[in-house]
Structures are given as C-alpha cells and as structure tokens.
C-alpha cells in the first residue's frame, strides 16, 4: 500500500475539514461562508451520518435488527458530559498552565470522546451478550426496551439535569465532527472488507450455515454490536458538545426510528447508502420549512408522505446494497444495470445476486 498516498490524502482531508470549518464559522473565509443555519444543518447531518453508518454495521451488514441506537447515543452524550462538567475544570486548570487553553480543551474533549465511546461500547457489550441470542424482531424490541430504560434512568438522575436538561461546554466544531465522521466511515469500511466483515455478511445471509462453516456467530455479532454502540456513543458525545445542551427528549425512540429509516432508505448494507439516507432524512424536513404560509402546518405530513412514497418507489433503498463510488460509475458504464458483480476498490462485496426476498424467506423460516 502506498503510504505516501495515504499520508497525502490524510493531509488533504484535514485541510478540507479546516476550510469547511472556517467556512462555517462566524467570520467565514475571506468574508464568505455558510450561513449559520445551513452550517447547523450540516453539523446535524454529519452527526447523523455517524449514527447511520454505525447502525448499518449491525443492521445492514450483520442483519441484526436493532432499534436502540438512541439509547447508546444518550449514554455517550451523558457520560462524556458528566465527565467534562464535573471533572474537567480541575484538568483544565492543571493543563492550561502548561499547554494553553485551546490545547487543553482539545485534550479534554479527546478524553471525553474516548470515555463516552467506551462507556457506550461497554453498554453495548452488556446489552449484546444476553440479547444477541434472540432472533430478529425479538432482538429489535429488546434493544428498543433498553434504549427506553436508559432514557428513563437518565431522567431520574438529578445530577445530569433530570427532566430539565444538562448544560455542557460546546467543544465540538466541524473539524471534530467531520473528522470523526470520516474515521467512522473508514472503520466500518475496513471492518466490512476484512475477514470479520465477510463473517458478518455470512451471518446476515444465513446464520445457521455460517455457524456450520465454523464461524463463531455469537462472538462476531457481539463484536459488531459493541463497535456499533461505541460509534453511536461517539455521535452522542459530538452531539452533546455541539448542542451544549442535553435533554432526554432528544433521545426518544423516534430518533432510533429515524436512524433505521436512514439506512433502509439509503439501502441496507451500503455504506454510501447510509450516508445518502442521512442526507435525505436530515435535509428533507428542513427544506420543507419553505412551505408557504398556512400550509406550513402540514410540513410533517408532507415529510411522512414523502417517506412512504420513497420507500414504495425504491423498496430496496435508494442505492440497494450497491455502493456509490467512482468504480461503480466505471462499471456501470460498461455493464447494463442489474448485472453488477462486486469487487474492485470502491464496492463492498455482498451477495447481490440474491434478491432481498430470498434473504427474507430464510428469515421467515427462522422465525417459524
């Protein structure tokens, strides 16, 4: 692997992140930039991308249906906020003297991110070990239940604000959020392309057969679940320190639903699909704010109607299990559609030849 290319692309990414961040800042770049409102939507969108990509690992690639992502996000957000609010002042004082405030804040935020993700990952382990032996919809409802329990427990802890909400220092900016979004995508991409990823996909396609082939399915499922939860926790940390205010109302099960909608709409088992889904689900309700006058009260009606229309017209998701990328375009030019063989650099190898309904039949059999 050409390391030089890697180093260069990393540098390029960092430069781009800095430029976008400058664009989004109050001053702008050379007097030009995003308005604060589009910038705010872009931040939300990027955080949603992390959530969608992480959920896609467990639901899209491994085929384990989880609707508790909001819970893990809440754990990440609240645990890191707790750390920063109650312990960081001491660190800030001791660090700021030696390295200055900016670096001190960055260090504290890094620690908070690591802490929040770890706690969320650990919660994922606790939830995953007992519940991943449940099948399909049973797992779904258990994860949903855990997320609701987490929310109610947080609501009962006065130290993190209870029902009123919890004010948090606003450390996040686009460099952090965008950077971690790219890192999350790279992590999930690399997992999917490794041996682990093939094991995960084999579990999705036929768990029994995978087991028979000598794959320790429970281990892989738990592994995927833990990584997915940790990434959701990461998104939670970034979210909390961007909004600088946490309320349990932001972690209700509707948010878990939204993340599911993102990945199904984009195409289950497609990384770029998850990203696209996050874009659509974040931008659409905001664009609908343009609805004129009295019609604006129907904004969410239009939004939900559009959801149904999209899913009816593209039942396999906007991208299906395909990936959107340069190599896909190259192949698409050569081959007629529907004859896509996976492989190459941009694509993810998933058994595309098998229509989703076949997978479904298999699932049905398991459930009976």
């Amino acid at each position: 692997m050409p390391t030089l290319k890697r180093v260069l692309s990393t540098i390029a990414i960092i430069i781009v992140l800095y430029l976008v961040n400058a664009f989004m800042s109050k001053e702008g770049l050379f007097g030009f930039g995003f308005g604060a409102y589009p910038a705010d939507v872009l931040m939300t969108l990027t955080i949603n991308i992390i959530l969608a990509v992480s959920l896609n690992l467990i639901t899209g690639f491994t085929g384990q249906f989880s609707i508790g992502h909001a819970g893990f996000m809440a754990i990440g957000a609240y645990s890191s906020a707790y750390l920063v609010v109650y312990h960081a002042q001491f660190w800030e004082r001791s660090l700021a003297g030696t390295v200055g405030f900016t670096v001190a804040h960055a260090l504290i935020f890094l620690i908070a991110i690591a802490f929040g993700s770890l706690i969320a990952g650990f919660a994922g382990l606790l939830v995953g070990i007992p519940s991943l032996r449940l099948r399909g919809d049973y797992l779904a409802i258990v994860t949903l239940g855990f997320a609701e329990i987490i929310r109610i427990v947080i609501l009962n802890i006065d130290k993190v604000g209870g029902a009123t909400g919890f004010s948090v220092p606003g450390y996040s900016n686009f460099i952090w959020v965008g950077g971690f979004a790219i890192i999350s995508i790279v992590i999930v991409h690399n997992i999917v392309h490794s041996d682990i990823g093939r094991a995960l996909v084999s579990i999705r396609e036929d768990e029994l057969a995978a087991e028979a082939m000598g794959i320790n399915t429970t281990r892989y499922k738990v592994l995927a679940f833990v990584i997915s939860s940790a990434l959701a926790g990461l998104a939670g940390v970034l979210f909390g320190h961007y909004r600088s205010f946490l309320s349990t109302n932001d972690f209700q099960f509707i948010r878990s639903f939204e993340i599911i909608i993102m990945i199904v709409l984009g195409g289950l088992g497609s990384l770029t699909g998850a990203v696209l889904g996050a874009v659509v689900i974040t931008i659409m309700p905001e664009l609908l704010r343009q609805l004129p006058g009295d019609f604006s009260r129907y904004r969410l009606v239009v939004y939900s109607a559009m959801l149904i229309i999209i899913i009816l017209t593209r039942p396999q998701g906007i991208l299906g299990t395909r990936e959107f990328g340069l190599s896909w375009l190259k192949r698409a030019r050569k081959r007629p559609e529907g004859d896509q063989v996976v492989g190459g650099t941009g694509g993810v190898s998933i058994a595309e030849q098998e229509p989703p309904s076949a997978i479904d039949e298999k699932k049905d059999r398991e459930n009976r």
Partner: protein
Amino acid sequence: MKRTLLSLLLISSLLFAFACERKGGPGAGGQTGEIVVGYYGDLTGRTSNFGQSTKRGVEMAADEINKAGGINGRQIKILSEDDEGRPEKAATVVTKLINQDRVVALLGEVASGNTLAAAPKAQAANVPMISPSSTNPAVTQVGDYISRVCFIDPFQGAVMAQFAANTLHAKTAAIMLDFNSPYSRGLTEFFEASFKKLGGTIVDKQSYTQGDRDYKGQLTKIRSENPDVIYVPGYYGEVGVISKQAKQLDIKAPMLGGDGWDSTQLWDLGGDSLNGDFISNHYSVDDPSPAIQKFVADYKARNGEVPDALAALGYDAMKVLADAISRAGTTEGPQLKDAINATKDFKGVTGTISLDKDRNAVKPAVVLKLQDKKYIYQETIYPEGMTAPAQAAPATSGTSPAAAPASSPAKAGTASSPAKAAAAPAKTEKSSPSPK
C-alpha cells in the same frame, strides 16, 4: 448513470450556493421598515396545543400594535418556526430565525427544556429572547439576553404551599407530578420545601408522564395515605382526567394546581369533579377589569375560544417587547436587551410586570377556586419585596387584597437545586456559558 452523477453534482452545488452567503454584521436588520420578530415553538408535536396557543397570543398582540400604527411607525412582522417540541430542533430553528431571517428579537418557548436548548444561540448572537412561559429558574441564567414575562417555579410552588398551609390549614399533602416535565418537577420541589417549612408533611409523591390516560394506580395509593390536599402541578390535558378519576375513587381532598391548569378544555375533561379545587395563576379570565375583559373578548372574537394562560403570556411577551423597542428607539440587540431588562410596572394582561435583576418577571400570583366552570378569586400573593398596591389587585369577589398577607415565598435566585441540577456550568450568571 452519468446523468445521475451530473444531477447529483448540480443539486449539491445548488445547495452549496443556497447555503453560501456573504458574512455581514450582526443580524439586527435595518432601522427602518418592518420589524421582524421570530417566534418558535412546538407547532406540530405532542405539546403543539401549547405552542399554537402562545402563537395566537403573540400574533394577536402584533396585529393590535400594527393596527395602532406600529412601533415608531414601523410595522411588526412575526415569523414562526416549528421545533416539533424537540430541544435539538429548537436550537436549529432559532439559528435559522437569527441568521437567515435576521429577526431582531425572539419569543418562545413554552417548555423550559426547549428554551434552554435555544437560549445559548440567542445569547451568542446578541439577539434578545423573551420566553412567555418557561418557568424553570435556569432559563434566564443562560445570559443577559434571555428574559421572561412569567413568574418562576420557586415562587409559584411556594404560593400554593402557603395557600394550602395558611388558608386551607392543611397539615398533610400528597403530590402527583408529571415526571417528564421540568415545570412540574420544579413546582413540586418548591411546593415541598415551602410546605415543610410551614409545618406540613408530604405523605406521598406519585408521578405520571404526559400522554398517560390512567392514573388510578397512583390515586389509589394516594387515597390510602389520606392527605388533606393533593398538589398536581401538571397541564390541563392530564389534570382534568386526574381530577375525574380521583372523584371516581371517592377522594375528597381538594386538588391544588398551577397555571398549567388554565384552559377552557380543562372543564370539558374534568367537568364537575373540578369543583372545589384551587389553582395559582397569573390572572383570572373572569376578572372584571376592563383590560382583561377586552383581551378575553378580542381573543374570543379572533380565535373562537377563551384564551388560556399561555395565550395571555404570549400576548404579554409581545407587548413587553414592543414597549421595549419603542423605549429603546432602536432594534439593535444590546440596546434592545437593556430596554427589555429595564421593564418596570408594565401593565400586562397577566399582571403588572417588572423584570428583576435575574430578568424574571416579578408579579403577584392569584389563587383561584374552581367552581362550576368559573374561576373564583380567592387571594393575591405577592413576591418578596413587592408590596400590595392599594388598588391593583385583580379582585373578583369581595375579598380585600390588602387583607392578603404580602408575605414571602421562597427567594427566587437562591432557591436550591433545579438551578444547580439544570445548568451546572452555566451557573455563573452573567457571562455567556458557551466556552467555544
């Protein structure tokens, strides 16, 4: 495929162009032409009845001002945005209102949680925000651009405790609170503290969440404790049914509530079972004072229903803002903020409003008795440091307001834990809490 890529590129560049703008100065707009005021609230979510009510009050006030020639000759334009009752969306729409629509000031939200999420944005952008009805003490601690026209939880909770202990001579009380609502939890806390201070005991505390329909489990438990009074600091949607179910369980103790009870729908939901209950409120719709009766009649003519407390507070928030703009003579954030914070003895529908140094409205509360779809005035309770003016009390029945002791419910600023729990890093009061 090429076409797909091209159209994607086109869309994204369009979006980019739409999003891109020249960075200007602060969003104060011009000093001539329309005055653009932003309202944000829950217009489509679970609490949208509150958001819509407040919006109607705000719009009515704006129309009245416009009909009377505007402020210094300038018309007011209200731009409303929906936050779906989600704190995250509240922050987003406030960002939009400030930066895209360039509003000069913001009105909103009802729920303290949503106001707290949005307030830092207004504070950072130097755009004044008046909350009509967020009663949690932490709200205005966000910074000096945030104020409110309602009284805060410590005061209102103490008012009812005082009424229960001194007027009703209650020794024991049970509390039934909406656990998910900061409003309800705040009132509970301060009711509890004051009631205990006055020698009472809290025998039971039960909770529900908004959207529940069955409260018999909690009420049966409360019944077994046999309290003298039951404090239910909730919103009318739940309270009406709670009262009804309490009567079905043959609970005789009167229920006490707060301004969240005030709505015509309360009577539809609770009916006769509400008779004999008491609430604390900003004003009484049955108050014969001409200003209030005109407001009630106009609102009814406009919207076909009697205003609830939230509509009245929305109305007052807009009027206080208009008053401040005309006093400041400008819509520049810093000056306007100073004018708002200097509001003194403003004659609003919901009482005479003065803002204290914490930018909370200081105004008396009235205690009303619920009887046959009427609110019957009982007494006026004044906050500490405010003495009863000889004539200003909204007396409906014969009780002389001067007879009401102008005694002191808990001190607002020093009240203990919600402030502590709510905004740990934002505790310092003046500086902006966002250490970006």
